C-alpha cells in the first residue's frame, strides 16, 4: 500500500461498500445511452462489409473485384494486396514462421476469415458488391479437432512451422516424480473443454479515418483492451503509437473480454479508410460475431494427482493442449498461462509437473473470454477433486478441508502469491447457509424413488489484475532474457477539481456495463467528503489525450483492485493538497481535518468549517496564496502497479495476478430420465473478493458470471462439423440461457481484504465463469453415476450418458442410414421409375436430361467428358442460393451403378455432394436407389444447421423425383417409411 500518497483511510461507514444505485442507469433507461454505433460520424463517412471465406482451408488463387468496383456507390475494395503493401503481420508472443494479417493474403484458414472488404455509400451497397467479387479457391485438407491437428501427417496450417503445434513447454516445480512414486493413489482424469463464448448484446463497431498529411489513423471503436494490443495495432499499421488515436465511447453493450478480438478488424478498417480516402464505418453483425470474432480456447487435459492414503494431494501432473484456431493471435498462448502460477488451485500442493502445448486448427482464432484460462483449468481440477472423493470413498468437504491452503499470504508451487482468504471458512459458509445436509437428504430420498439426483461442488481461487509478464512464461528463460522482462499491471486514474469546486474523474478502465462510474463516484466522494452525485465521471478513453498504460482496459477483473485503487490514490492526493491549504487557513493540524458534506473543519469544531469549493478555488483563482512550491490548479493522475507482480523467474515461477479471491459453489441437480434435461434444484455460491466496494454491483457480477457459467455447462458451444463448417451462426443455434433458464442462485459473501490493493478489494467478475461449469458437471456426473462428462451437458449428451437401450424398430421398418449423425449429412433413398434401367442410365448421363433434373439448372455446358459446369439454384422454400457448380459423372457399372458428384460456391457458402446411384430392374420399370454424403460450409451452414439435413434430403430426393417425371412415370412413387406405415394403420398425414 502506498500510504505516502494519503493519510486518509476510509471510515467503515462511508459511501464505499454501500449498494449505491448505478449512476449510469438514468441515461440507459431513458434510451440516452451513447454506444459506439450511436456516435455521430463525420459527413461523408462510408460503410463497409467483409467478404469471408466459406472454406475451412483453401489457397486463394484469385480475388477479382473489378465487377464489384463497377457497381455504383462502391468506392474501394481492400484485398490482401493492399494489406501486404500497407501493413505488417500482427506480432505475437511466440516466435514462429507464421503470419497473421488483417485480411487473408494467400490462404484462408477458417470459415468466416475475412479476405476482402468493400467500401461503399451504404452497407446495403457494400453487401451487394460482395456478391460481385470473384474468388477462385483451391481447397486444401483441413483439421478441426485437437486430435486431428497433432496426428502424424496432419495437414499443416502454416507450412513453415512444419507442425500445428506452435508452442510447447514443460515445467517442473518441487519433486513431482518422487511425490507420485510415494503416493498411495494415482488418480487421473481426461477432460475436454469446448469452444464457447460470453455473448455481448452489442457487437463490434469501428469507425476509422486516415489523415494523409501526417499518415495518422483516428479510430473510434468499442475495443476494450488490453491496451498492450494498441501497440500491436500500431506496429501492424507501421505508425508510432501516438499516430493511432483510439477513442472509446461512453457506453458499451458488453465485452466479457471478447471485444479484444476487434483489433485485427480495426487495422483492416483503418486501411480501408486509407484506400477509400474517407472515414469508414463497420458494424459487426451477429453472424460475423459468432462465426469469426473469437472463442474461448478449447482444451484437452490429462490431469493426474498423487494422493496420500488420508486424501492429501501431494502432487499434480497436467498435460494440457490448447486449440487456438487458425492463427495464434495476441494475447495467445495466454489461455495456458493466466492460471499457470496458480495451477494448484485452492490446495497446498508443493509438487507440480506441467506440459503445455498450443495447437492450431482450421477454426476462428481464440482469445479473451470472461474467465480466461480459468474454466479450462478448474473444469479439470475440480472434476478431479470429485473423482478423488469418489475413489477414496471420502466426504467431499472433508477432502477439501484436508487440502485447502490455510495460511496467507501463500506462495503456490508455480509462483502465485495468494494474498488473503479463509477457504475453509468460505466452504463452511456455503455448506451451512446453502443447506449441504438438507441437499444430501434430498438426494437420498430422490434416489430411493429411482430419480436421478446429484450434488457437485467447486472450489476456485479467482485471480484478478493480470501480470503483464505472465504470457512470457510461454518463453524459455533465455528467450525471455533476449526479449526483455515484462511485469506489472499499471492502473491509472485522474481526479480533478475545477474552478468552482466541481470534481471530475477519468480513468482508463473502458467499462462494459459493470458500473465503474458508480464505484469511482463512491470512492472519490468518500475521500473528499462529498456526495457521489457531486462527482462527474467520464470514462471515454482517448489514447491521444488521456493517461493510459499497456495494462489499461477492461479485462482480468482489474477494476475493483487496481483502477478503483488508483482513483482512490489520486483522490487522496487531491485531499492532501486541499487539506494542506485548509490547515493553514484554519490553523489546525492537517491530520485533524474532517471532510464531510462539502465542508472541511477541524475534528470536533464543525462551526469553523470552510466550504470545499472555497478551499479548492484557491488553487485556481489565487495560486499566490499557496505555499511555495505547491503546484497550482487541482488535477492528480495516479499510476499504480502491484508490487507483487514480477517477471517470471529463472525457475519459471510466475505470480500471474495481483489478487486472489475465492469461490465455493454447491450445486444440486435433478436429471429427467425421459428427456435428458438437467434441472438445477439449488445453486449456492459463496464469495470472498476482499473488500466489497458496492455489494449490489458485486452481486450483478456474480449473477452474470453464473448465467454464463450455466451456459457453458448446459447450453453453449461453437459447434463445427467434421467438414470444418461453423454451425452456430445465430442465437437459435448458439444457445445462450435466458432469464427463463437461469435459476436464482443463493449468493453468500465474506470479506478478507487484500493487503496488496489500495482499497483491499479484489476482482469478482470471473469466479462463476470458472466455478459454475465444474460444479454443475460434478452434480450431473453424481446424478448419473458416470466418470466422464463432456460440456455442454445438453439433453442429447445426457441421454447418451444414461445409455438406455432404444427399443428396436418394429418389423418392416428400417434403421436409418448408419452414417447419419449430427455432423454428417448422409442418407439414402429410393424411387421407382417407369422406364428400363438402360433408359434411366441414359437419361442420367445425358446432359440435356441432366439439365432438366438438376434444380434450377441453367447454362449447362460440358468442360470434359462427363464433366459439366452450370448455374444451379439450390434451397428449400424461400431460401435459395445460386451456385456456380461443377457436375461430374462416372459410370461405374453401366447400366447399374454410377457416381454423381457436384461441387459449387454461392454467396451462401460452398457445397459438395457425392452419391452413388444404383439401378435395378423392378417389374416393367427400374428401382433407383441412392446414397449420398454432402458437405455444406459457409453462411448457410452457420445459420441453417437446424435444417441442413432435411434440406439436403429434400434437394437430393427432388433430383430423382424429377427424373421419374421426366421419364413419364405416372407418378413418382417414392417410398418413405412413414407413408407405407401410415397407410397400413389408416392414419392421414
Amino acid at each position, binding site marked *: 500500500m502506498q500510504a505516502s500518497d494519503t493519510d486518509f483511510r476510509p471510515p467503515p461507514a462511508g459511501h464505499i461498500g454501500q449498494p449505491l444505485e448505478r449512476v449510469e442507469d438514468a441515461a440507459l433507461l431513458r434510451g440516452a445511452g451513447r454506444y459506439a454505433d450511436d456516435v455521430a460520424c463525420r459527413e461523408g463517412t462510408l460503410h463497409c462489409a467483409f467478404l469471408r471465406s466459406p472454406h475451412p482451408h483453401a489457397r486463394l488463387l484469385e480475388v477479382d473485384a473489378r465487377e464489384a468496383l463497377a457497381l455504383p456507390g462502391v468506392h474501394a475494395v481492400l484485398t490482401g494486396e493492399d494489406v501486404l503493401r500497407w501493413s505488417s503481420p500482427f506480432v505475437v508472443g511466440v516466435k514462429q514462421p507464421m503470419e497473421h494479417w488483417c485480411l487473408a493474403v494467400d490462404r484462408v484458414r477458417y470459415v468466416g476469415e475475412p479476405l476482402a472488404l468493400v467500401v461503399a455509400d451504404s452497407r446495403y451497397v457494400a453487401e451487394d458488391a460482395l456478391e460481385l467479387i470473384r474468388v477462385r479457391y483451391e481447397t486444401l485438407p483441413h483439421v478441426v479437432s485437437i486430435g486431428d491437428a497433432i496426428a502424424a501427417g496432419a495437414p499443416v496450417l502454416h507450412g513453415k512451422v512444419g507442425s500445428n503445434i506452435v508452442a510447447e513447454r514443460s515445467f517442473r516445480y518441487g519433486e513431482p516424480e518422487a511425490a507420485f512414486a510415494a503416493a498411495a493413489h494415482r488418480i487421473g482424469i481426461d477432460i475436454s473443454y469446448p469452444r464457447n463464448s460470453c455473448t455481448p448484446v452489442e457487437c463490434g463497431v469501428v469507425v476509422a479515418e486516415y489523415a494523409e498529411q501526417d499518415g495518422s489513423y483516428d479510430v473510434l471503436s468499442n475495443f476494450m483492451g488490453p491496451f498492450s494490443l494498441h501497440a500491436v495495432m500500431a506496429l501492424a499499421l507501421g505508425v508510432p503509437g501516438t499516430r493511432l488515436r483510439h477513442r472509446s465511447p461512453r457506453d458499451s453493450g458488453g465485452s466479457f473480454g471478447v471485444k479484444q478480438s476487434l483489433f485485427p478488424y480495426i487495422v483492416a478498417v483503418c486501411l480501408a479508410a486509407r484506400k477509400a480516402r474517407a472515414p469508414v464505418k463497420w458494424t459487426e453483425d451477429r453472424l460475423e460475431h459468432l462465426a469469426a470474432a473469437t472463442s474461448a480456447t478449447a482444451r484437452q487435459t490429462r490431469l493426474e494427482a498423487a494422493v496420500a492414503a488420508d486424501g492429501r494431494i501431494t502432487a499434480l501432473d497436467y498435460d494440457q493442449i490448447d486449440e487456438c484456431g487458425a492463427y495464434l493471435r495476441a494475447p495467445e498462448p495466454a489461455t495456458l498461462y493466466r492460471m499457470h502460477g496458480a495451477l494448484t488451485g485452492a490446495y497446498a500442493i508443493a509438487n507440480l509437473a506441467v506440459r503445455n502445448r498450443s495447437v492450431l486448427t482450421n477454426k476462428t482464432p481464440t482469445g479473451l473470454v470472461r474467465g480466461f484460462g480459468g474454466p479450462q483449468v478448474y473444469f479439470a481440477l475440480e472434476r478431479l477433486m470429485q473423482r478423488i472423493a469418489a475413489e477414496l470413498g471420502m466426504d467431499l468437504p472433508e477432502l477439501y478441508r484436508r487440502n485447502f491452503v490455510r495460511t496467507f499470504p501463500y506462495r503456490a508451487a508455480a509462483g502465485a502469491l495468494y494474498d488473503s482468504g479463509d477457504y475453509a471458512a468460505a466452504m463452511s459458509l456455503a455448506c451451512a447457509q446453502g443447506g449441504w445436509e438438507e441437499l444430501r437428504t434430498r438426494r437420498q430420498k430422490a434416489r430411493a424413488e429411482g430419480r436421478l439426483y446429484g450434488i457437485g461442488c467447486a472450489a476456485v481461487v479467482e485471480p484478478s489484475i493480470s501480470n503483464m509478464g505472465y504470457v512470457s512464461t510461454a518463453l524459455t528463460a533465455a528467450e525471455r532474457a533476449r526479449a526483455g522482462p515484462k511485469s506489472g499491471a499499471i492502473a491509472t486514474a485522474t481526479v480533478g477539481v475545477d474552478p468552482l469546486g466541481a470534481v471530475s474523474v477519468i480513468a482508463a478502465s473502458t467499462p462494459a456495463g459493470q458500473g465503474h462510474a458508480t464505484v469511482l463516484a463512491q470512492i472519490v466522494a468518500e475521500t473528499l467528503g462529498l456526495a457521489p452525485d457531486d462527482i462527474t465521471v467520464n470514462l471515454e478513453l482517448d489514447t491521444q489525450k488521456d493517461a493510459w498504460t499497456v495494462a489499461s482496459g477492461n479485462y482480468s477483473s482489474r477494476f475493483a483492485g487496481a483502477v478503483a485503487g488508483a482513483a482512490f490514490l489520486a483522490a487522496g492526493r487531491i485531499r492532501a493538497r486541499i487539506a494542506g491549504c485548509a490547515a493553514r487557513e484554519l490553523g489546525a493540524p492537517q491530520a485533524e481535518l474532517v471532510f464531510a458534506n462539502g465542508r472541511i473543519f477541524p475534528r470536533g469544531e464543525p462551526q469553523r468549517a470552510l466550504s470545499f469549493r472555497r478551499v479548492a478555488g484557491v488553487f485556481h483563482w489565487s495560486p499566490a496564496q499557496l505555499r511555495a512550491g505547491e503546484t497550482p490548479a487541482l488535477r492528480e493522475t495516479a499510476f499504480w502497479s502491484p508490487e507483487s507482480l514480477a517477471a517470471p523467474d529463472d525457475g519459471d515461477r510466475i505470480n500471474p495476478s495481483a489478487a486472489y479471491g475465492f469461490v465455493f459453489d454447491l450445486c444440486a441437480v435433478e436429471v429427467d430420465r425421459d*428427456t435428458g434435461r438437467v434441472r438445477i434444484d439449488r445453486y449456492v455460491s459463496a464469495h470472498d473478493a476482499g473488500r466489497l466496494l458496492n455489494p449490489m454491483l458485486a452481486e450483478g457480477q456474480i449473477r452474470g458470471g453464473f448465467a454464463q457459467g450455466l451456459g457453458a455447462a448446459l447450453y453453449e458451444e461453437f459447434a463445427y462439423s467434421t467438414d470444418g463448417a461453423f454451425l452456430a451462426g445465430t442465437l437459435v443455434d448458439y444457445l445462450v440461457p435466458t432469464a*427463463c433458464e437461469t435459476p436464482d442462485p443463493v449468493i453468500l459473501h465474506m470479506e478478507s481484504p487484500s493487503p496488496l490493493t489500495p482499497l483491499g478489494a479484489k476482482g469478482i467478475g470471473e469466479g462463476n465463469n470458472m466455478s459454475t461449469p465444474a460444479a454443475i458437471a460434478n452434480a450431473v456426473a453424481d446424478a448419473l453415476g458416470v466418470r466422464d462428462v463432456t460440456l455442454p451437458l445438453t439433453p442429447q449428451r445426457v441421454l447418451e450418458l444414461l445409455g438406455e437401450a432404444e427399443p428396436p424398430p418394429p418389423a418392416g421398418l428400417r434403421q436409418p442410414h448408419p452414417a447419419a449423425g449430427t455432423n454428417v449429412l448422409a442418407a439414402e433413398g429410393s424411387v421407382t421409375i417407369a422406364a428400363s434401367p438402360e433408359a434411366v442410365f441414359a437419361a442420367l448421363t445425358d446432359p440435356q436430361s441432366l439439365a432438366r433434373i438438376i434444380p434450377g439448372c441453367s447454362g449447362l455446358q460440358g468442360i470434359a467428358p462427363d464433366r459439366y459446369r452450370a448455374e444451379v439454384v439450390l434451397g428449400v422454400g*424461400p431460401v435459395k442460393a445460386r451456385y456456380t457448380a461443377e457436375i461430374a459423372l462416372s459410370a461405374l457399372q453401366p447400366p447399374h451403378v454410377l457416381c454423381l458428384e457436384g461441387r459449387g460456391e454461392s454467396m451462401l457458402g460452398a457445397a459438395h455432394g457425392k452419391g452413388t446411384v444404383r439401378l435395378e430392374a423392378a417389374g416393367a420399370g427400374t428401382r433407383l436407389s441412392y446414397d449420398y454424403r454432402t458437405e455444406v460450409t459457409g453462411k448457410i451452414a452457420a445459420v441453417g444447421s437446424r435444417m441442413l439435413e432435411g434440406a439436403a434430403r429434400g434437394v437430393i430426393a427432388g433430383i430423382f423425383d424429377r427424373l421419374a417425371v421426366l421419364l413419364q412415370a405416372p407418378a413418382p412413387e417414392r417410398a418413405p417409411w412413414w407413408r407405407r406405415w401410415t397407410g397400413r394403420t389408416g392414419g392421414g398425414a
Partner: protein
Amino acid sequence: MDGADGGWCVKPPVFDYLRVDTVDEAVELLAKYGEDARVLAGGQSLLPMLNMRLAQPRVLIDITRCAGLDRISAGGALEVGAAVTQAALERRGTLQAESPLLARALPHISHFQVRSRGTVCGSIAHAEPSAELPLVLAALNGSVSLRSRKGRRELGAGAFFTGMLATARRADELVEAVRFPLAGQGERQGFSEFSLRHGDFAVVALAASVTPARIRLAVGGVDDRPRVVEWPRLSGSALDDGLNELAWSLDARNDPHASARQRRQLVRRLGRELIGVLCA
C-alpha cells in the same frame, strides 16, 4: 439504426415494397410477380431471412392492412384471417372453450414479442417443420383457404404441408385464412413440447386429441412436416408399441442440438405421458 447515413445494421437486398388495401389487389400482384414475390404479414421469419440474404424476393406484398384479414370468426371452425397475429388469437377470451389445443400451444411459440407481430397464417404458410401452428392445424385436421385471381380453394392440412418450408400453395395464391375445427363434445386435447430453451423451436412437439372412440396424435419437429396418426383407444403395452412404431416410422432429423434417436425417444416418452393424461 440510423437510416440517414445508410448505416443500418440490417441489410436486405433491394426489393420493392408494395402495400395493398384489399385482397383483390394482393392476388393481382401475386399473379403478376409469382415466385418473385413474398407476402409480408408479421415478418417474423421472412425479415430475418431477408436480412441475412437467405431469401431475395424482388417484391414484398404487405397485406397487414387489407380489409377483413384481421378477423377471427367461429362458425363450425375457428377461422383466422391472414393478418391476425398469434397474440390476438391467444388473447381471444373464448379460445380455451373453442380450441383447448390452440390455447395450450400458442404460448409455446417463441416469446410474446414475436407473437405480437407474427401471424397465425404466416406461420402456417412458412411451414417450418418444428413450428407449433402447422402441427396444431394438422392435429385438428384443419384446412387452409387459398385465394388467387382465379378463385378460392380449400386444402386440408395433410395436403397443404408438402415438406420442409414447402406447401401446396401456388405462387399466385394467398393464404387468406386458416380453419381450426372447434373441439367436439367429449373431446380432450393436449399439447406437449420439448425445446432446449423457453421459446426455442421444438425438438419434438406433440398435439393430441382424444375422444371416447379414438386417439389422434400429431408429431412436429421430427420429420419434414407434421405427421398425424389415428388410433383406437390404445393403452398399456399396445400404446407403447404404437408410439415406438410411430417414432421409427418418422424420417427423424439429426441436427447439432438433437439427434434422430433423441427425437424418437421424446416421441415415445412424451407421447405416453400426454396420452396417459388425456385418456385418464
